[in-house]
Structures are given as structure tokens and as C-alpha cells.
């Protein structure tokens, strides 16, 4: 899906835990995430800390979208 959306020329960032899959299917901008059942969260943290963590991950994703890349890049 990532690749087909990018084919339209829209920058796309893949947030995924198993980044090796992400790389092998051809995503160009990747943000490694926390765990399969909660990629952008962590139930072991308190509410505030989890929110901070999610905020940090989304910020990284947005950084990916404003960064020109030539090849697969992990943010």
C-alpha cells in the first residue's frame, strides 16, 4: 500500500515495528515503532508519558515527510 500511494507522487511515511518488512516491500521513509499491538503507544507507561512518546513518534514521521530522501531512510 505504501508503495502504491507513493507512486502518485505523494510523500508517505511508514510507521511500523518490523522495519525489515517495511524495507523489503519498498517503503522509502520509515519510522520504527514500539510494538506490533501498539505501534505508537506503550501501555506500560503512564498516560502523560505515553502521550509524549506518541507525540515524539508522530513528530519523527512528520520530519520524514519534510526531508528529501534518495533511498530508504529510517527516521
Amino acid at each position, binding site marked *: *500500500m*505504501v*508503495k*502504491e*500511494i*507513493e*507512486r*502518485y*507522487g*505523494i*510523500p*508517505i*511515511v*511508514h*510507521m*511500523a*515495528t*518490523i522495519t*525489515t*518488512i*517495511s524495507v*523489503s*516491500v*519498498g517503503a*522509502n*521513509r520509515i519510522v520504527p*515503532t514500539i*510494538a*506490533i*499491538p*501498539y*505501534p*505508537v*503507544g506503550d*501501555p506500560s507507561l503512564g498516560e502523560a508519558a*505515553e*502521550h509524549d512518546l*506518541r*507525540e515524539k*513518534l*508522530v513528530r519523527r*514521521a*512528520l520530519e520524514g*515527510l*519534510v*526531508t*528529501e*530522501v*534518495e*533511498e530508504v531512510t529510517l527516521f
Partner: protein
Amino acid sequence: MKYKVLYYVNQFFGQVGGEEKAGVKPEFVRKMVGPAMGFNGLLEDKAEVVGTLICGDNYFNENKQEALDYILGVIKEEAPDIVVAGPAFNAGRYGMACAGLANAVIDELGIPVVSGMYMENPGLEECRAKAYVVETGDSAGGMREALPKMAALTLKLLSGQELGKPEEDGYLAQGRRLTIFVEKRGSQRAVDMLLARFRGEEFKTELPMPVFDKVAPAPAIKDLSKATIALVTSGGMVPLGNPDRIQSASAQKWGRYDIDKNVALMGDYCTIHGGFDPVYANEIPDRVAPLDILRDYEKEGKIGGVYKYFYTTTGTGTSVANAVKFGQEIGKELKDAGVDGVILTST
């Protein structure tokens, strides 16, 4: 003396449990569990399975080094003649675990590894150059066909006979080139092929071209504060009640939902994804698709806005063909809507 085989399975085939047990640490049991039993029955008394390693798919993929430390320790101690993993069919995480194990066992211990995977399993590309992987069906329904093929290959490897070509001995090509003697020189073979092609006859290339389907990275967003960002997920997040009946595995469709009035997914969404323990995602759906944070950024003016529709499907077991189609359809809508950038989350 019988050859020793060590078997690797995930939590499901290891009879520990389903998704809720996908986080279990690796464990070694000195008996045959799940497919190891059927496999052992096919070894014609020449070899036997001495034990089964069982590891949760999530645990392996999220803690690869820890998992491998334990697994390699066990294998070193047991000193099997061969390691058999799977078959993983089209289970992506299981395939990646089999592949991770195979590469480590081959590289670090020099013990051959046999596995079985569906052609589209992402684990295949990871390990096919080193491991011997048998092609299987896409679901556990293919067990009956897979095990005899894996057993035959295992016995041949153990016997020390040189393996034939992939199609002869039933494994997927490893991409190796071997020197062989042939009657006709290259130029003659090439002309023969060309003539066969002219005549519309069948011919077989000696060097299949690899298919590299890479998409060039799209240009970056210039001004984030004016950009519309769309949120897409393969994590199966749907409005409560799953109005469009999106499948929980092997998805046949995707959904588009209006999130214009949502400050977060929490409260209105849940996951129907059948490939992970849904407890945490249902508690806070934004743990899978972070609309809450995007709204914060929108409010602060860091991004222009969040696109009014949220796109979702289920990634588990979904065929590559369908995933391509979903991506094309969703991408077209996003393009037509003038969306500037996309965040796609996967579980």
C-alpha cells in the same frame, strides 16, 4: 545412528496459544510438538526430531537479539545435524522469525536450515539465499503437502548427496550460479532460444531477470504548516460495529471514514485485525493510528490540517495483489483530494 533434527515453531503451532500468546519468550522442549510430530513420521527412521523450540512471533520480532541468544544457545548445546523451521505459510511475522533464525543458525553455527513458506511471505526474501525453503500454500491447510516436501529435502541434505536444481529437489531458488558442463556453447544456445521465440515455441531463459519494483521517493513537503496530512492504517481500526464488515484477516476491501469531527479515534473506533492481541488497541485506538497527536499539531498550526477521511484495512494475511489494489485506489483518492503527505501505520 539417526541424524538429529531440531524443530522450530511459533506459539500457535507450538500449542501455547493464539495471538494473546504471541509475546511468549522462546522455550525448548525435549519432545515433538505440532508439525514436528508429523514431520518426524516422514523421516523414515533415518533421522529424528530431538526437540522443539517454541517462540512467540511478536517476541521474536520485537526482541530478536534476546530470542536468538536463547535459541542459538539451545541449538549449540543440542548440536543437531539440521534445523527445521515452520512451515510459516503466509504468516509474515512467523516467516520473519523462521528467516531470522535460519540466517543466524547458518551464519553462526554452520548448521543447515530447512523451512517452508508461501511465495509472498516477506521472510522468504530474507533467508532464501542461505536456507532451503520449500514453497507452500498460503495457509495451514497446506501442511499436508508441505511436510513431505520439507522432509524429503531434509533427508537429502542429511545424506550428504549434492542437491539438484531447485525444481528437481523442491526448494526455492537461492540465486546461486553453479558451473556446469553443457554440449553447446553460449552463442549457439542463445541463437536456439531466439529462433524458438521467433517460431512461437517455448524456450527457457538461463538467466531470469530479477524484477525490481522500486518506487522513487516522492519529493518532501515544502511547508508543513500548509500541508494536509492523511492518516492510513493496516491495523484494522474501524468505527465501532465495523459497518462495512472489513475482514479481520485476508482483507478483501478497505474503508474510508469521516474523521472531521473526531479529536481522536478513542471512543468511536476499535480494531478488527485478527493478527495481534487487540486489548491495547481497543483501549486507546490512537495507539495504532495517532489521530490525537495529529489534531494537536493541527491546533498548534504545525500542520495545515488532517485530511477529513481516514483510510483503513487489515494487513494480516492480505495478499500482495490486494494490498497493491488498495494502495492504488486509496492513493488515487488522496491524489485527487490534493493531500500533501501520508502517515501509514502498520501493526
